[in-house]
């Protein structure tokens, strides 16, 4: 039996980041009805911009990290302002496909601008750490888990207790009625886009260290976050967080086992399928009449 303790640490760290990005996806969905599939691509692009700022323009690291996070907020907000309102009345599927198109544009841009080379962006928190027996726990892993937990709590409190948060929740229930009540719909939506984008930028930086600064890998890690968000039914932040952690830990635990290890990347899909079947079980069926 392999030693699973290092995999527990790795799984919790990665799961924390899945939870962080899952929260970002849920908050945006609750405010705008948009399932943002470009979440991972935005984070990846922010991390690559940070890499270029540090390595090519020789800017201080902290400036590059700040730019990456702000870039995530700005470009997500830009998408929301350009396409959010025009697509507001469309099906959720159409709105999601719109973000998929945005993903492909970002993916193409990144491949064009940053192809060929191996890129590396390691946060300075990685140098901090301690050993628990034979298991090394570094600062970025702690940051990933801690930020996931903290953002979940803050976001839940924000949505429940602040005026802006309440406005976001009411937008999710009924956009037109909310507007007639005098809530500045576009400003509330803009806040949701921007906030979600900031989380996307932060997620990109964390994942660039935990997983590697890889264009395609980072872009499609959104799938794990999406699974967590779906398990939370795009409503509950706490369930989303728990699901993100569970996905990360289970995927990591499967790694050292030869029989199931090669299939561990299916973990988010399996979680999502089981959850969707569970939610559908016991629902009244539509009759032919």
């Amino acid at each position: 039996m392999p030693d699973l303790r290092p995999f527990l640490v790795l799984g919790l760290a990665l799961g924390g980041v899945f939870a962080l990005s899952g929260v970002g996806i849920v908050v945006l969905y609750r405010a705008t009805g948009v399932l943002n599939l470009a979440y991972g691509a935005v984070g990846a692009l922010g991390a690559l911009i940070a890499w270029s700022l540090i390595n090519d323009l020789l800017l201080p690291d902290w400036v590059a990290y700040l730019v990456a996070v702000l870039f995530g907020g700005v470009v997500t907000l830009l998408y929301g302002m350009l396409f959010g309102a025009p697509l507001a009345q469309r099906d959720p599927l159409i709105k999601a496909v719109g973000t998929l198109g945005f993903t492909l544009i970002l993916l193409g841009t990144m491949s064009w601008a940053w192809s060929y080379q191996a890129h590396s962006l390691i946060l300075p928190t990685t140098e901090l750490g301690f050993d628990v027996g034979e298991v090394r726990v570094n600062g970025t892993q702690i940051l990933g888990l801690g930020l996931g937990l903290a953002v979940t709590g803050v976001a839940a409190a924000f949505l429940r207790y602040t005026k802006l948060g309440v406005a976001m929740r009411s937008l999710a229930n009924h956009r037109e009625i909310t507007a007639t009540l005098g809530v500045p719909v576009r400003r509330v939506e803009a806040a949701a886009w921007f906030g979600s984008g900031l989380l996307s930028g932060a997620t990109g930086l964390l994942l660039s260290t935990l997983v590697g600064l890889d264009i395609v890998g980072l872009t499609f890690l959104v799938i794990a976050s999406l699974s967590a968000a779906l398990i939370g039914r795009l409503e509950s932040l706490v369930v989303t967080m728990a699901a993100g952690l569970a996905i990360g830990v289970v995927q990591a635990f499967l790694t050292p086992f030869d029989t199931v290890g090669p299939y561990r990347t299916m973990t988010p899909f399996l979680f999502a399928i089981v959850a969707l079947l569970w939610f559908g079980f016991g629902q009244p069926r539509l009759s032919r009449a």
Partner: protein
Amino acid sequence: MKKSSGPRPGRPALALALISSLLLVAAACGSGGGTAGSTSSTNSANASKCGLGNGQKATGAPLTLGAIVTKQPGTDFTGITGMAQAYFSCVNDNGGINGRPIKYIVETEQTDPQQVAALATKLIDDDKVLAIVGSTSLIDCAVNHTLYEQRGFNVIVAGVPFACFSTPNIAAVNMGPYYSSEGAAQYLISQNVKTMVVAGANVPGGDHDISGVTAIAQANHIPSKGAFLENVPISDAAGIAVKLTQAAGDGGGVVLNFTPPEGLKILQAAEQQGLVDKVKWAWSTPGNDASVVQALGPAWNGKLGVNAELNLVDSPGPDNTLYQKLTKQYAPTIPLGSFGQMGFVAADIITHTLLSLPDSQLTPQGVNAAVRQIKNFKTDILCKAWYFGDLQQHVPNNADRTVVPQNHVFVQKQSCFDIAALQGNNLDTIRQTEKSQGLNGT
């Protein structure tokens, strides 16, 4: 259907668009160019010349060459053909092939056998290429070698799957992941490892690519503790690093067979997890890359043996000096490394071949016949002279070096050594033929 009539984007949105675009352009303009050249040679030795070296643009009827290259997530070999294109651009700026420029058609593929078969047919029948040079594909050799034999095409590749080294009409400038991984394992054996573990990309032929590591470990009575195929692009490098070191155990050896971005993820994850000194590490030739060595921290100084099928990127020989100059001038986004050197050598070989032929022989039949006769092609980038020759299998590059990182550059740890001949890897037969036909002066 209700027509959507959303409001037009106002000034704030346009301002945001402008800021984002400026950021993107600034980063993209700066991306990739600044860090690839830190290992450029300070030696002022003369560089070889490309083509005629006369500084005159070639303006005659073009000579068409072709290539097929894999480009998909986790596997992108276009740096090789990109470097070959750079060489040809230099040739065209220096008189071409007796006044005629080279037109290089590169087709990308995504490991779809039907697509790859169609691309080879297109190059030969529609584009009417004189030769196929610099192809680097996971499946081209296996899918198309019969076509090449039927049409009399003698193809110069940067080979990946074993079919590039075991068929009569294909010869590679490199030795490919199978032999290179074996060479990496040979280095670890020289470092007295107690066990052997290997991990490679889960791509077509990936299992064979890493099988040589297990074979040479067994031949040296070293327990083989695992041969793992990992899906690429890798999304859990830390887990893989922990798994490999657990499997190898203290004092064991781990061989990696991945492209530069994927292998780098594992090494950096290993460093973050404090695993650098738990085992001895080695990497097949893709690790010999400037962007990799610049990203590896000082914790890796001397701790990673990379099997270098081609010479150090800052070696001072005339061909390598030309390679550095061409990279800087024509392909600044391609990092200095083995991949670029492969494209350079392939282009160098075909250019010299074309220059040696009279105009009447610049036909597919004439060029491919000449390619097959190539022997004793000397270049300071390879350990031995290169050849094509009239053989059933071709592994002309079967000796290489080991390099290790030292303060963000690679330094030579082992000079040229022969890759071990094992049962089933053809090297015994090939080396006997080299001697008997005088193919490379051995």
